[in-house]
């Protein structure tokens, strides 16, 4: 109850609304992402109390997940990776003159998907938190290792590159004072490095600067296509509500998929959206319009799934301290800035903050309902703003945001280096999320890992002697074997499929050259 009161405080309510609008607007602009929106707001949370700060961030998360659909439906350009699949049916429906209905279905599905995941979060999270209190040092160390491996394995590119990225993050996390003996490591006599490399400037640089570099590279490219006009947003939402009877099964199923996928670290909203779309296509009873040509379920499924991911992703972040995606990684950062330690003790020690966050989540969904009804005409205008118009301001905010953390210029250099590194890592298909998560969790992992060894007098079998820790090790090994087998089979298949097509083509090319 106190949590609900926290969430309903006027200042918290105001910032939650600001978050929802900003999330919607930024995610609707092609080229800008929810992660970027959350990162840009992070410096503001340094100066705010915990509840309004978290309310604002959850508002951005909820608004951003819904906002991606606007440009997907009206421009055929997804606002975020999760909305890629929404373009398949959203844009054809909009082209038929039913853009308002497509947006109505997208928003309604987002709201219901989010509400489903909030319900699951409220019911499941406290129970898992009670179980997680049984974790000792060995269990925590193996849990972090499992989380990092999952993120590395599910990220884009190969698992080897994901693990290299995680290794880089762990290496950066060792800079500064040793957490157990307090001796200096990798500080090279630089006083500012004694406190270690903060993950906040790294996060700001890694999410924002690659977008700025891309905007500079694409200067002079063709502008966006013209957006399809929306007749009446209110009518669209009303029509969507009227068609809820046909869509509820699809929305419920997709919400369950989104919540489950969200709870697995590293999987991401795109996977949830694609998987739910595939299920909708397979199980749909509504075949009056084909999938890919404007079927309402083709919009409802991905949008419900990507919004449901919000609640799912909060489960491992809040209970285990392992963020599953970039947005929850930033939220974890916000919790740490507030002096709170995410993990199973959070539910015991800061109940009001946790339930305040849940309340803000529910309020964000209610606000999304109102804003989606009133604000669609505004968002239709906003999506025409090219990302590069906002980039100079974003770069300035990055400099201020990284400096503001500790009033340290070193943090600005860290942000800059991280941004450049992230751009080229992404160019060469090295995921950046494992690096970030490893940097955040590195100190905890090292402390628990070494504490386990100290308790066991150096016996490494401590990690398999305890049943919960053993279960994590078994999961870890199984996941590694499964991922490597999958990647090996994939490479074999691509080689096999390339041989018959490439050989004759290359032979022909030689023949032509010979002639």
């Amino acid at each position, binding site marked *: 109850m106190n949590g609900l009161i926290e969430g309903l405080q006027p200042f918290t309510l105001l910032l939650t609304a600001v978050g929802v609008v900003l999330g919607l607007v930024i995610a609707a602009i092609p080229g800008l992402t929810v992660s970027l929106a959350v990162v840009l707001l992070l410096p503001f949370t340094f100066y705010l109390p915990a509840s309004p700060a978290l309310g604002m961030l959850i508002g951005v998360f909820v608004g951003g997940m819904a906002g991606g659909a606007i440009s997907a439906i009206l421009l055929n350009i997804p606002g975020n990776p999760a909305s890629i699949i929404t373009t398949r049916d959203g844009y054809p429906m909009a082209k038929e003159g039913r853009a308002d209905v497509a947006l109505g279905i997208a928003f309604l599905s987002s709201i219901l998907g989010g509400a489903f995941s909030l319900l699951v979060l409220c019911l499941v999270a406290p129970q898992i938190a009670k179980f997680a209190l049984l974790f000792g040092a060995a269990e925590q160390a193996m849990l972090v290792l499992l989380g990092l491996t999952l993120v590395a394995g599910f990220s884009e590119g190969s698992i080897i590159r994901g693990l290299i990225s995680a290794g880089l993050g762990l290496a950066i996390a*060792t800079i500064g004072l040793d957490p157990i003996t307090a001796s200096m490591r990798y500080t090279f006599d630089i006083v500012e490095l004694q406190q270690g490399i903060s993950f906040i400037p790294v996060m700001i640089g890694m999410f924002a600067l690659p977008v700025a570099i891309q905007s500079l*590279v694409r200067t002079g490219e063709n502008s966006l296509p013209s957006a399809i006009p929306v007749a009446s947003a209110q009518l669209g939402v009303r029509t969507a509500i009227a068609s809820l009877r046909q869509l509820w099964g699809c929305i419920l199923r997709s919400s369950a998929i989104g919540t489950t996928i969200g709870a697995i670290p590293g999987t991401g909203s795109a996977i949830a959206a694609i998987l739910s779309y595939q299920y909708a296509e397979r199980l749909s009873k509504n075949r009056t319009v084909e999938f890919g040509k404007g079927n309402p379920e083709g919009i409802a499924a991905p949008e419900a799934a990507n919004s449901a991911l919000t609640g799912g992703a909060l489960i491992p972040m809040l209970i285990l301290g392992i963020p599953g995606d970039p947005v929850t990684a930033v939220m974890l950062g916000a919790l740490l800035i507030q002096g709170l330690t995410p993990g199973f003790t959070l539910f015991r020690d800061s109940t009001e903050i946790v339930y305040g966050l849940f309340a803000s989540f529910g309020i964000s969904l209610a606000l999304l309902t109102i804003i989606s009804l009133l604000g669609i005409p505004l968002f239709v205008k906003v999506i025409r703003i090219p990302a590069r118009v906002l980039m100079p301001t974003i770069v300035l905010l990055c*400099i*201020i945001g990284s400096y503001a953390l500790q009033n340290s210029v070193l943090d600005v250099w860290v942000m800059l280096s991280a941004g450049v590194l992230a751009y080229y890592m992404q160019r*060469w298909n090295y995921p950046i999320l494992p690096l970030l998560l490893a940097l955040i969790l590195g100190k905890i992992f090292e402390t628990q890992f070494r504490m386990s060894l100290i308790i066991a007098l*150096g016996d490494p079998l401590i990690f398999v002697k305890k049943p919960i820790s053993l279960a994590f090790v078994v999961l870890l090994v199984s996941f590694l074997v499964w991922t490597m087998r999958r990647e090996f089979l994939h490479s074999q298949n691509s080689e096999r499929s*390339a041989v018959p097509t490439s050989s004759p083509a290359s032979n022909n090319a030689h023949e032509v050259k010979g002639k």
Partner: protein
Amino acid sequence: MAARIIFPAVIALLAVMYGWIAQGFPSMSLDEGFGPGLFPAFIAATVGVLALAEVVIQSVSASRSNIDPTQRDIPLVSISLRELAATCLLVALIVATVFAIRYVGFIPAASGLVFALSLAMGMRPIWVSALSSIAVALSAHFIFSGLFGLVLAF
């Protein structure tokens, strides 16, 4: 040589240096064997092995001519000059802004950064860029310095 081989090779080299530095960390009698150097040594070994494996995989992949270039998970195309120029420009502008704040103050330096980036990103006409740059710098100064009390003297 393609960047897809150079990058993991550089990481492997860095892992060796990182592990080598870790050997010099003091060992405590209480936790001898698992002192401050233990964790970095694990990381160095793991990252080093993985980076070398990636070098081998990419070298083998590059030597196989029958793989369809569109199927490769890392494009063969190297970084373009345009990308390098964009990166250098952004780095130079941020570095210049940080130093300029010390000498000319936040508002002129921040206006300069926003104006230069606006021009580089193709925002026209110039007077609109100039005016919006000053407005952005003033707003940022008002919010962070005026409202939040942050001292914007780097």
